[in-house]
């Protein structure tokens, strides 16, 4: 007999378990960071509590380019994202003769805001780059996503009663409860899980599935890129200095050509050069598909030198699937549904990892390997949120104006998660769980308070700005959930102790 297990469902359940175990911890990081990225602009605002100035998008971009013209004139490119109804600062990436830096620029003065931080960009990058050097992080994320696709499909096939699992939850029954919870989280948001995994793979397609390009273009990547975005104007630098024409008229002209739709991004190639190119992109916040529409201007004169609006069906399909993953079109209730779907997927991954251990422990004492799995579960499932919470606390506690401040926040986040992981490996899980969940609760309660947090809260409420208060409330909610976790773990332990003592007396 050469089947791995008897029966299709058994084989699928076996495969579901092992695929989940193989990349579950990576998937947990990706799902959690991705879920938080739904609110990327809002997290950035929470992390820059003093930078509350606001201006119209045209004025803000004009201020930014004025500041950059004096402070980064020799740059090879300025890449700017305009403020909108969610973000109030200009997000800028530029170089000053060396590496590229990312800064939030004040929409009125155009200068970088004092509290230098990656903000929500940290979670967004972590989601698909995993703090690993290019291209390894993206490769690992791609492999994890492909594994997840297989895990989802095998999970569905392994299932006996999809519909009944909608309504099944048997609490406080060990393995049964974890299984019911895992099934409910997986089944209730199944369409979201499939959509987000599939579309996520597509966002890294040029890396993880380049074979179509190879078949049709061979080594000529530039030709493929040109066919994908035929409107892109790529002009080499002339080597002669020149100044940019005023940018506001270009922005207005672009919006006129977009049929009144607002622009969102502006890129300025070789800004101090006679052959500089200003390209203005339409915002995709008002449509599902991230379809490209762009207008390019000759920098020194401000004349239009290229315009392109994507209408091809195949590229449009790609753009819709890409846009579905980014979810930038989702506003109001839909945005919270994205967040909920992501949270359910994160919890499905976490409960699946715990289920692996619980299931084996109820059958027999854990093997050495599964003991390591149990400790890694504590270290990752509690340690990664601890890293995130430490990131937020560091943001409040590190003084503004510190050199390399943004990088220091990231270092603190990674160190906190690393220490939590080491602690989890060192101590028994029955101590590790309450200890790390307790630390998580403390950090989540500290983040809204430390470093003048309550002043920022009062100021935000006075302005009628709800981003900061709602973020604070979510942090408190996570703290409460972590404390409930602590209580559950410790109570279960004293219960078992009592039963054992009872048995000993009888």
């Amino acid at each position, binding site marked *: 007999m*050469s*089947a*791995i297990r008897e029966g*299709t469902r058994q*084989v*699928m359940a*076996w*495969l579901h378990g092992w695929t989940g175990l193989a990349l579950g911890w990576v998937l947990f990081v990706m799902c959690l960071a991705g879920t938080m990225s739904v609110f990327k602009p809002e997290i950035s605002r929470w992390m820059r509590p003093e930078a509350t100035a606001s201006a119209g998008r045209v004025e803000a971009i004009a201020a930014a380019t004025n500041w950059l013209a004096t402070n980064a004139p020799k740059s090879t490119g300025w890449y700017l994202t305009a403020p909108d109804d969610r973000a109030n600062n200009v997000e800028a990436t530029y170089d000053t003769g060396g590496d590229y830096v990312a800064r939030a620029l004040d929409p009125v003065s155009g200068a970088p805001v004092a509290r230098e931080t990656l903000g929500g960009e940290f979670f967004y990058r972590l989601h698909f780059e995993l703090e690993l050097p290019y291209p390894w992080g993206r490769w690992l994320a791609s492999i994890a996503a*492909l594994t997840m*696709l*297989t895990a*989802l*499909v*095998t999970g569905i*096939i392994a299932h006996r009663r999809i519909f009944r699992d909608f309504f099944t939850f048997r609490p406080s029954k060990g393995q049964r409860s974890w299984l019911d919870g895992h099934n409910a989280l997986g089944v209730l948001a199944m369409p979201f899980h499939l959509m987000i995994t*599939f579309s996520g*793979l*597509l966002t890294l*397609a040029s890396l993880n*599935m380049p*074979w*179509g*390009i*190879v*078949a*049709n*273009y*061979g080594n000529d990547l530039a030709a*493929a890129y040109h*066919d*994908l975005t035929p409107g892109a104007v790529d002009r080499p630098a002339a080597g002669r200095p020149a100044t940019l024409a005023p940018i506001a008229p270009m922005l207005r002209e672009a919006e006129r050509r977009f049929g009144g739709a607002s622009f969102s991004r502006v890129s300025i190639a070789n800004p101090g050069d006679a052959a500089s190119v200003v390209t203005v992109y339409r915002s995709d916040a008002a449509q599902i598909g991230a379809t490209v529409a762009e207008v390019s201007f000759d920098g020194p004169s401000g004349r239009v030198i290229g315009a392109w609006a994507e209408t*091809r*069906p*195949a*590229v449009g*399909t*790609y753009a819709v*699937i890409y846009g579905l993953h980014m979810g930038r079109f989702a506003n109001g209730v839909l945005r919270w549904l994205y967040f909920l779907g992501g949270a359910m997927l994160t919890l499905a991954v976490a409960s699946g990892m715990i289920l692996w251990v619980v299931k084996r422990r109820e059958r027999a004492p854990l093997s050495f390997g599964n003991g390591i799995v149990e400790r890694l579960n504590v270290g990752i499932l509690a340690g990664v949120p601890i890293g995130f919470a430490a990131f937020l606390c560091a943001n409040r506690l590190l003084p503004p104006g510190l050199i390399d401040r943004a990088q220091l926040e990231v270092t603190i986040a990674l160190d906190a998660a690393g220490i939590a992981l080491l602690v989890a490996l060192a101590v028994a899980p029955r101590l590790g769980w309450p200890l790390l969940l307790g630390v998580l609760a403390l950090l989540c309660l500290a983040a809204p308070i430390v470093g003048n947090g309550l002043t920022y809260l009062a100021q935000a409420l006075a302005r009628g700005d709800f981003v900061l208060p709602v973020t604070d409330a979510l942090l408190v909610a996570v703290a409460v959930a972590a404390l409930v976790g602590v209580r559950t773990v410790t109570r279960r332990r004293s219960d078992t102790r009592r039963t054992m003592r009872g048995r000993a007396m009888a």
Partner: protein
Amino acid sequence: MGARAAERRGWRYRGNVAARVLAGSLGAYGVAACLAMAVARLGGGGRIDGVIAGTLCAYLVVPAVAVWAFLARGPWRAWGGVAVLAAVFAALAWMIGPPAR
């Protein structure tokens, strides 16, 4: 139960699992890559339209082949299925040839 547990520890069983893991991962990716190439060249419209269609199909075939690799009656059949699919798609791509231009 004891007999089956023993069966699951033997080298035959481990080889069986290893062969299927390779078929379901690298094999599945290979089939997907060949399918992406075939569909890219088959796809009507411009060169880029085929690339997009091929890439979308490729992602769908990965979990399908992975499931097949573990449900096939034996590891040889699992690899046979992977090899036949990859060969068919690769041959298709090769016969159509790269698009003009």
